[in-house]
């Protein structure tokens, strides 16, 4: 394989896809923890925060990498996508700011302000999740602002928010025990209905609102080859639903299952999206080949990436290993 104008854009699209997928899974569960804040008592909130404390910063960095790859590998698409999504991007950024700082301030500000910072943490998580969902919907719709597209965007905003809170609940099931774990199971039981409805509505609506996507999915033989995607998703949903009826178990067996199941669903959904849009990076307008930077610049970045990405993955695993097991209260010393 030679590194040229045909292979490099594909490699970088794959790298960007990997970053987005890792971001959605990793920041998904800590955004979800924020979304569940209103349902938790102040003591439970401290424990939930403790479960994501060592990770959230690095989790958000995958978003920086994804947007960074978009910026550096597909500069034309970066401008086109972000100017079209100007408002939801601003909402998401302010949400991310509120969330990130509330995380630190709530533990350091005077006790009387803690409730307000908790509210800011929830509001920031909600703004971020909803804005990301809305952008996903607008992207599916080809980034054109019409009333109908915005309505679809609101649907995906709701769906992604519910999905994040489900994976957040699954994380809490995995990382905590006793009363909070039982509570998280009940959150997940509520969330799974919302997620099933949301995922189902978006998956069904998407091919019908776009003629091109309909043809991509429902022509023969593609429909046969693609069938495993929705079938697997349904199977995972059923298993999740069954597992939630039996959790928590004695000896804490299968506490990892909801998190694994939710992650698998996100992976499947991601590949569905990737199939729908390839080779376009700006839907219907710009392909990854047209939007890519010069091959020389991409090669320089790729060399660095091949060295650095395994290291990043390595020390990310180290961090999750150091902080493995049930979350205890956080302390700097």
């Amino acid at each position, binding site marked *: 394989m030679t590194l040229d104008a045909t292979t490099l854009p594909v490699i970088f699209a794959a790298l960007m896809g990997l970053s987005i997928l890792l971001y959605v899974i990793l920041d998904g569960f800590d955004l979800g923890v924020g979304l569940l804040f209103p349902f938790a008592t102040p003591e439970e909130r401290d424990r939930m925060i403790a479960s994501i404390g060592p990770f959230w910063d690095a989790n958000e960095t995958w978003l920086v990498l994804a947007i960074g790859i978009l910026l550096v590998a597909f500069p034309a698409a970066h401008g086109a996508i972000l*100017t079209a999504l100007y408002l939801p991007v*601003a909402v998401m950024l302010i949400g991310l700011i509120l969330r990130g700082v509330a995380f630190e301030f709530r533990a350091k*500000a005077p006790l009387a302000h803690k409730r307000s910072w908790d509210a800011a943490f929830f509001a920031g998580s909600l703004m971020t999740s909803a804005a990301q969902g809305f952008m996903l919907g607008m992207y599916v719709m080809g980034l054109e602002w019409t009333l109908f597209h915005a309505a679809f965007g609101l649907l995906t905003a709701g769906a992604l928010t519910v999905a994040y809170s489900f994976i957040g609940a699954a994380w809490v099931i995995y990382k905590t025990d006793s009363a909070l774990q039982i509570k998280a199971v009940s959150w997940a039981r509520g969330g799974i209905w919302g997620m099933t409805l949301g995922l189902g509505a978006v998956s069904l609506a998407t091919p019908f609102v776009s003629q091109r996507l309909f043809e991509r999915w429902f022509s023969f033989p593609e429909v046969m080859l693609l069938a495993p995607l929705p079938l697997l998703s349904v199977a995972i949903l059923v298993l999740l639903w069954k597992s939630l009826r039996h959790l928590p178990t004695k000896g804490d067996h299968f506490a990892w299952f909801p998190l694994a199941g939710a992650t698998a669903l996100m992976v499947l959904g991601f590949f569905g999206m990737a199939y729908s849009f390839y080779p376009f990076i700006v839907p219907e307008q710009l392909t990854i080949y047209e939007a890519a930077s010069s091959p020389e610049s991409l090669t320089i970045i790729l060399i660095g990436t091949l060295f650095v990405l395994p290291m990043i993955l390595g020390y990310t695993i180290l961090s999750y290993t150091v902080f493995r097991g049930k979350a205890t209260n956080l302390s700097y010393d």
Partner: protein
Amino acid sequence: MDAFLLSRIQFAANISFHILFPTITIALGWVLLFFRYRFARTGLQKWIDAYMFWVKVFALSFALGVVSGITMSFQFGTNWPGFMEAVGNVAGPLLAYEIMTAFFLEAVFLGIMLFGARKVPAWLHILATFLVAFGTTMSAFWILVLNSWMHTPQGYELRDGVVHATDWFAIIFNPSLPYRLSHMLLASGLTVAFLIAGIAAFRRLIGDRGEAVSTQLRFGLILGAVLIPLQILMGDLHGLNTLEHQPAKVAAMEGNWETGPNVPLLLFAIPDEAARMNHAEIAIPNGASLILKHSADGVVPGLNDFVAEDGTPLHPPVAPVFWSFRVMVGTGMAMLALSWLGAGLIWRRGADALPRPFLMATTAMAFSGWVATLAGWYVTEIGRQPWLVTGVLTTEAAVGDVAAPMVMGTLMAYLAVYLFLMIAYIGVIFYLARRAAEGKSPTREDPRRDTPIAVPAE
């Protein structure tokens, strides 16, 4: 106001807010490593007290830096798509290396540094602290490479109006990088030195007689006293480098309109761009010629050399550059006076017996590093105008096609959030200082201390 001006104000607001926090974390990371190392060596409580106090400020500053930094990476696309379209082939790899070699390193090891003290062996905790400090410095390196290249671009060729890299070594080690990087790293060190001294002085003023406070006062003031002369020297070298590569910027800094010898150093003046002259000048004769050319009759470039045939100025707006420069230098002089006085007082009577007026002045100077750093960045960034990348891309050519009211709306939202966070940030630092002075642990999260932090055996 049009979308162009609003976008500039928005970018200025975002990047000004952002740079405050890296300015603290770059140097504070190394200071924490020093505190942690001293504790490991001596086992003295005062070092771990200092570490525990400042690591909280570090975590807070880091979070603010990360979230405002994420905002920056989106702003390129939302407001300035022309930047990446024109120079993406150079800017892209530099930003990618920043994210990959620095951003992840700091973000991942921050978790172990903050919360891992009891979960990992001492060597790994010290290593994590080192990697976080190293990561923030690498981050500064790559960002300053890109910024310096925008001031003094080389190692590229233009094909159809798009920049293509030809020599990466020349791009990375462009002429202004060594000066800008050193100047910024020293600025970060000074900001942290005065912050530590200022907060320790505040604790002493409200009655904290603890040994940790004396140690931090001594540490901050002596670090400041050592770094400030180096910074003044580096600033001078940076200025000479700018004179060579961006003479119009130096002309604006000096408020000098006509090229010629024996140019005075203006201590005060009101530059008037319409009349192309200064009002109310207070000057030191031959001062600018002496500083810039090291001789009284040295020729200093004037702004009138940078005007197009039709009268359009090709130099930066004069007043903001002129004034920012004076604010930066003035703050630097105040730092010099305070830290040397402090070092003298410590020499004569020790850090336990510093007089109250001196402690009050030190508290007032706690955030002086921010003032000088921002003013310095305004000099260099406004001084590059009308160019975004000198000689390659004008700022106006890079702006995106976004409706002005939308930029205005988001600008107001950002400003409101930033103002609120700034108040909260400074408020929390003083709150933590007050708690520490009262002898209470600054956070409520601390559990019973069941396992002591490992001190390696001697």
